[in-house]
């Protein structure tokens, strides 16, 4: 079988040891492809560890713009002897293996159906560098140089990135250029370019390349958040850290240099959400960033926020559960925990971003919704969106946009004799007015509590008073239905009775899967869910189809469960496509599952 020839459409996977400095070199590889106008989708697959364990970086080079994980590997850059066998096994038949040929490998460690490319990286490093750390770091740049030559990546693209990354440090730039050239010229001299080639294109456009956590943090800045309390937990930590960095840049009073923000690394997740609730009660926009275990710890406060009606925003960057689960793997498995967090009857709005662009938008929107609805708003990222850099539409902001502070009664209104009842239905939307503490000397003060109370915030355990309040909270939740982001429809090319619902990071794989299915003559209308409570369009979509697949990255079909619970939909109408091994879902998987079920459906119909 001859080698596969492919231009701007293949997958390169780097197998490294973590802590070896490979991450920045691998990132540079991916970005250099983008600098040539070819989109990439890159994902880190890393352990919960700092040094010494295997780590992978998968780069899908895709002029067609398929940003989901494809599955399979065309070129394996095998830099980790520990994982050699499984790395070699993962290469698609007819693919390529790049390795450090300093020490010869026994022929039995290779495969006959792949092409092996050896570069004596260690020997080259040992000859060129004295210090062990230099040898290790520059080895990474040398292989980037070698790969550039093998794959047709313009060395200028890599050099441009090196110059930008090390701007002002000429010595480092020179040293990196040298290492790059070393790898490049070795290939040009001893080897030949591979049939896998990157060619300059114009498919990136003005898109930006950014992590979801960073985008969500920037959204929080634009959404007017001033208080952030958090506790370190993978994969959410970089969200709070990015917020800190952005605030230092964008949220400092120019005259005094003082902070227009307060960020507290709390002692745990309970204190984090407590600080958020306290700040929200006192009229600040406040948030925490966490993951599933943190949400578990926060549930008592989330219930308080629901019942006492205090604005709060939680960014839940989901990881593999339950318990400690798979801390560095991705899942969409906190939907139910977040939607119904708290004891007693509680429900919370969820925003479901699909990429960093939406992390920014929804990150800002969440604060308007929290103030408007006076409750906890969840923004449900996952590790795949949060911790990987994605190509996404540039961030946009309308300068005429105002922060919606919701229903807040002012001192003037109180003075003018407005009847203030903290939990009183006024406008029929279930949302009462609130006052900020310290507003007026004699009016508008009230006692906030998690116990049942009457519309004027006075303690009451009377059944009718309690029920009225709980019903109002339901009306408020119904108001939320119209405020959360609407679903986005993608109609099939032909009229069909089949539909598919999906959400979050499944988006790019789903889009690609729909294209694959279409070429097989399988047509489905698709609807991407972006918020909970569910918009009416979602129920209409389900009603308009005979069968609606629900694609999710969890075991228990959590979105489907919510649809059944909230919408009373028959489970049989919603076949699940579930992927939950901790790796991002792939188009191949989705298309395969749906094709199989559709084929089975046809056979059943024929019988």
């Amino acid at each position, binding site marked *: 079988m001859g080698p596969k020839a492919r231009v701007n459409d293949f997958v390169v996977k780097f197998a490294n040891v973590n802590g070896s400095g490979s991450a920045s070199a691998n990132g540079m590889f991916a970005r250099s492809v983008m600098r040539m106008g070819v989109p990439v989708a890159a994902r880190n697959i890393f352990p919960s560890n700092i040094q010494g364990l295997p780590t992978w970086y998968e780069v899908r080079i895709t002029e067609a713009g398929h940003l989901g994980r494809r599955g399979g590997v065309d070129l394996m850059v095998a830099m980790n002897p520990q994982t050699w066998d499984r790395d070699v096994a993962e290469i698609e038949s007819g693919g390529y293996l790049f390795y450090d040929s300093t020490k010869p490998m026994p022929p039995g460690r290779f495969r006959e159906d792949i092409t092996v490319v050896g570069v004596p990286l260690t020997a080259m490093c040992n000859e060129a560098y004295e210090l062990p750390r230099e040898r290790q770091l520059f080895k990474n740049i040398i292989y980037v140089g070698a790969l550039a030559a093998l794959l047709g990546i313009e060395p200028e693209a890599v050099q441009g990135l090196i110059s930008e990354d090390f701007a002002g440090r000429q010595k480092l730039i020179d040293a990196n250029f040298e290492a790059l050239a070393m790898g490049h010229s070795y290939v040009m001299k001893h080897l030949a370019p591979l049939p896998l080639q990157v060619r300059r294109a114009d498919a990136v456009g003005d898109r930006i390349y950014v992590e979801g956590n960073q985008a969500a943090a920037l959204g929080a800045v634009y959404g007017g958040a001033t208080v952030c309390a958090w506790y370190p937990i993978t994969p959410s930590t970089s969200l709070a850290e990015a917020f800190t960095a952005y605030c230092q840049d964008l949220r400092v009073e120019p005259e005094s240099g*003082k902070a227009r923000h307060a960020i507290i690394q*709390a002692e745990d997740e*309970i204190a984090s959400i407590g600080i958020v609730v*306290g700040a929200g009660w006192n009229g600040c926009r406040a948030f925490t960033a966490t993951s599933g275990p943190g949400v578990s710890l926060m549930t008592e406060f989330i219930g308080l926020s629901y019942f006492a009606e205090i604005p709060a925003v939680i960014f839940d960057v989901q990881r593999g559960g339950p318990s400690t689960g798979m801390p560095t793997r991705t899942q969409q498995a906190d939907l139910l925990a977040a939607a119904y967090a708290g004891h007693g009857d509680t429900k919370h709005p969820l925003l479901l971003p699909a990429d960093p662009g939406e992390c920014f938008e929804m990150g800002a929107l969440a604060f308007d919704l929290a103030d408007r609805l006076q409750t906890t708003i969840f923004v449900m990222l996952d590790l795949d969106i949060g911790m990987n850099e994605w190509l996404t539409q540039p961030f946009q902001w309308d300068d005429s946009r105002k922060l919606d502070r919701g229903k807040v009664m002012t001192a003037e209104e109180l003075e003018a004799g407005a009847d203030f009842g903290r939990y009183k239905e006024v406008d029929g939307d279930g949302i009462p007015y609130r006052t900020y*503490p310290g507003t007026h000397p004699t009016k508008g*003060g009230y006692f906030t509590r998690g116990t049942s109370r009457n519309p004027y915030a006075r303690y009451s355990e009377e059944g009718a008073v309690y029920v009225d309040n709980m019903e109002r909270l339901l009306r408020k939740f119904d108001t939320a239905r119209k405020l959360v982001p609407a679903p986005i429809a993608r109609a099939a090319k032909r009229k069909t009775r089949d539909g598919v619902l999906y959400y979050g990071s499944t988006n790019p794989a789903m889009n690609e899967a729909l294209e694959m299915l279409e070429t097989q003559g399988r047509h489905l209308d698709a609807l991407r869910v972006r918020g909970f409570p569910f918009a009416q369009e979602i129920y209409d979509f389900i009603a308009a189809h005979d069968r609606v697949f629900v694609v999710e990255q969890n075991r228990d079909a959590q979105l489907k469960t919510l649809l059944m619970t909230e919408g009373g939909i028959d489970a049989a109408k919603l076949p699940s496509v579930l992927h939950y091994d901790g790796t991002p879902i792939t188009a191949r998987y989705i298309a395969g599952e749906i094709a199989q079920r559709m084929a089975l459906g046809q056979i059943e119909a024929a019988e």
Partner: protein
Amino acid sequence: MTYILKPQLHHPKLPTNSLGYTRRDYEGSVSTLCAGCGHDSISASIIQACFELELPPHRVAKLSGIGCSSKTPDYFLGNSHGFNTVHGRMPSVLTGANLANRDLIYLGVSGDGDSASIGLGQFAHAIRRGVNMLYIVENNGVYGLTKGQFSATSDRGSKSKKGVVNTDAGIDMVSLALQMGATFVGRSFSGDKDQLVPLIKAGLAHKGAAFIDCISPCVQFNNHVGSTKSFDYVREHNEAVNRLDVVMPRDPIHVAYKPGETVQVQQHDGSILSLHKLAELYNPSNRAQALGYLQARATRGQIVTGLLFVDPNAGDLHDAVGTVDTPLNQLGEAELVPGSAALDRINAALR
């Protein structure tokens, strides 16, 4: 917890402070605690202290956790915003509220169950962050609302009403607050208003984390022979190290005690603490000595009360975070939203 509001009428000749408020304007709803409860005496002292300090009542935010003591903020400062949070978590909520508006005065009221058991962690961390607040623990050594279980401040060997002996070591909240870096630490007794009112005033005027452990006997479950938190026991074992007088900058300064026995301390807000020393050797400006003194007296079975430590020049969490002078909850779009031009720059750097 009550919905009984006190009538607004009061005697026309009630004295008013310079803001025109009477003592009644600092009261709240009618207490539903047991008759004779130490906590009600503490509420009365808080009312008196706020009246004397001439605080605008609505500029105080009062927060509490869960338990008998945590119900009390309903019974004072009826025009203030109050927040009865969740069990043991008042310190974090107060911290968040304080970050949002640095201009209000924060009073945290808690109990020994709320702060020494479920909330020990949050108590310690709020103190070590230097949150600008007065944190009062109404300490009765017992769970009153659930009818008489030992709390974590019960002394080893003390006996419950049912005759059960506590075998666990008691947590001394004062020592803990000192170790965690509180910059104002006092202990008092609910039955000693002369000592307690000035301590509360000084604590409210203090900038930084102020803590008062107030022993407050539970008349129902912890006021019997064998209890170390009963009225009789505390009166017999009380070792007061000083008596305090608080003079606000607006008052003519007078010294109530004889020279030689009095130490004057000026706090950040200009208030002067006039300390009448009862124990010759006691020095309230030395944290290590305070801890040593407490330990030494504890081994003799004595409960030291008074102002045990004060750092009059302490900073607070806002100083540490470096926040702007304007309360964060008053910043608007212009200060908070960087706008599209800044976003264009950010986009450009991400290509």
